[in-house]
């Protein structure tokens, strides 16, 4: 019994230390964002700012088009999430509950695209977007993402659990196909769609490579791209850079903390990485 207790204490000490190390970069970013750049350069060893200042934040919010970036990020992310949920749920339902020609082949094609690294489609997609006149347009980050193989797969798995008799009895009652989908299937899919929504949102909110390729104009950038741009433009101004990073990282982190139960459920349910 005694031995048991000691090992428990050691585990606690170990995990708490590790947890502190995990949070330290956040702490340091926030602390630096309230220091003056001069203090960071000449007197960097204080954990907390000696003369706290809001100048870094002021600089980001007034001297950069921060609110454009925020709006672009919100618009692209929300649009993509809504479209992907709609398409995934109905296509997943169709592959789960309907019989039609080429069903196996078509499903295989969708699933196979999950294994393809995005680097191989990156250059042709860029050329295509250019041809369509969508370069430097938010459309470039929206139109290509309607069909999400993982979302379709997830919804299909969920629909497989729905008894066929439920759908058939609705048909006998004379319900139209869209009506059945909306009134019967969608409510059952809710947990899957919740998880999918969280991860689609995170995925597009955090995306860096696609905006980097498709957007050029400062005002059209999304937050992650804008941050790397801002950091290279203001390389010498560390407090403003840290303030920009904090403005981008803190909101998602707070949202995550509020909904962490659903995040964790979603990851375990879907295994999304």
């Amino acid at each position, binding site marked *: 019994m005694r031995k048991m207790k000691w090992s428990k204490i050691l585990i606690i000490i170990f995990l708490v230390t590790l947890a502190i190390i995990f949070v330290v*970069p956040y702490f340091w970013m926030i602390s630096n964002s309230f220091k003056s750049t001069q203090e960071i350069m000449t007197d960097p060893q204080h954990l907390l700012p000696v003369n706290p200042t809001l100048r870094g934040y002021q600089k980001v919010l007034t001297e950069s088009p921060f609110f454009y970036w925020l709006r672009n990020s919100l618009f692209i992310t929300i649009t993509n999430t809504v479209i992907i949920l709609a398409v995934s749920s109905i296509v997943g339902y169709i592959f789960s509950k309907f019989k039609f020609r080429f069903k196996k082949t078509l499903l295989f094609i969708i699933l196979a695209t999950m294994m393809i690294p995005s680097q*191989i489609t990156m250059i042709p997609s860029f050329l295509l977007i250019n041809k369509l006149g969508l370069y430097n347009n938010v459309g470039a980050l929206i139109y290509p993402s309607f*069909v999400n193989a993982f979302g379709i797969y997830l919804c299909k798995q969920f629909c497989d659990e729905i008894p066929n008799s439920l759908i058939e009895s609705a048909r006998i009652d004379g319900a139209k196909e869209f009506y059945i989908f909306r009134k019967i299937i969608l409510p059952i899919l809710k947990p899957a769609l919740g998880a999918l929504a969280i991860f689609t949102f995170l995925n597009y909110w*955090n995306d860096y490579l696609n905006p980097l390729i498709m957007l050029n104009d400062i005002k059209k950038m999304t937050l992650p791209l804008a941050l790397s741009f801002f950091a290279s433009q203001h390389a010498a101004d560390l407090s403003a850079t840290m303030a920009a990073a904090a403005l981008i990282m803190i909101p998602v982190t707070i949202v995550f903390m509020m909904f962490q139960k659903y995040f964790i459920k979603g*990851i375990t349910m879907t295994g999304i990485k």
Partner: protein
Amino acid sequence: MKYKKFVWIILIPVFIHMSVFIIGPIFAGVGISFFDYNPLNAHQNFIGMQNYVRLLSDNVFIKAVTNTLFFVAVTVTLNVTISLGIASLINSFRSNKVRSLFRMIFFLPCVAPLVASSVVWSKSILTTTNGLVNIVLRQLGFAGVNWLGDPNILMWSIIVFTLWADIGYNIILFTAGLDGIPADIYEASDIDGASKWQQFIHVTVPLLGRTFAFVLVMTLISHFQMFAQFAVMAVKNGPLNSGVVLTSQIYRTAFEYKDMGYASAISVVLFLIILVVSMVQQKLNKVEWEY
């Protein structure tokens, strides 16, 4: 048979969209690798295998391949072992509150954009004079280290960063997998007098097989494609190209040098590496993890 119309009204636009934005570009990506493709040129010349031949004598490409394989091998091994270790320590607590608190903390870095945390690490954690790590080292009486400027250290800095940034997913997947192992198996092995370590090796690890295989494949595939931290932390490939990987070399070749044919050839190589690795994985999983 009325529902046939419903099926095709939905599926036809979906597959048209897929052909335009996913399937078409896959074939085009392979196709462009046979051209001397530069969007600034008027004509794109077909050059057959020449891009691939050029790869063989390209030192930066070879460095990118070895760096990528090194990064993936080290990071994935450490990621899977450490996250399994942390997950089983977290699961040794009974209280759900304690468990979810720890899971939440280790997951925090996964939520932020990778490029944002890369900026924070490269500008304020790993910088030589005012980076937090060196400040601590100096306080303890050690000399500071040039984390991002020394060709022998850069890749290790990126590996540590990536572990910090990405380990939370696997911790959550493993804690869920561990929860799925029935408690009576542990009770039975307790009665048989197995130590905690014996239990871990003979009960936990084999019964975690499916989660383990899944985590390994997903982590491998995602790590081959990591880009943001290399773009930020290995400025211009890092000293002596010590931080170049395939993804960053594809990006640079295509969009900075506009050498898109050659960049496509590199991306075909990356695709083939991922394909081979995931096929080997599938084979091994079938043999080893069936229970």
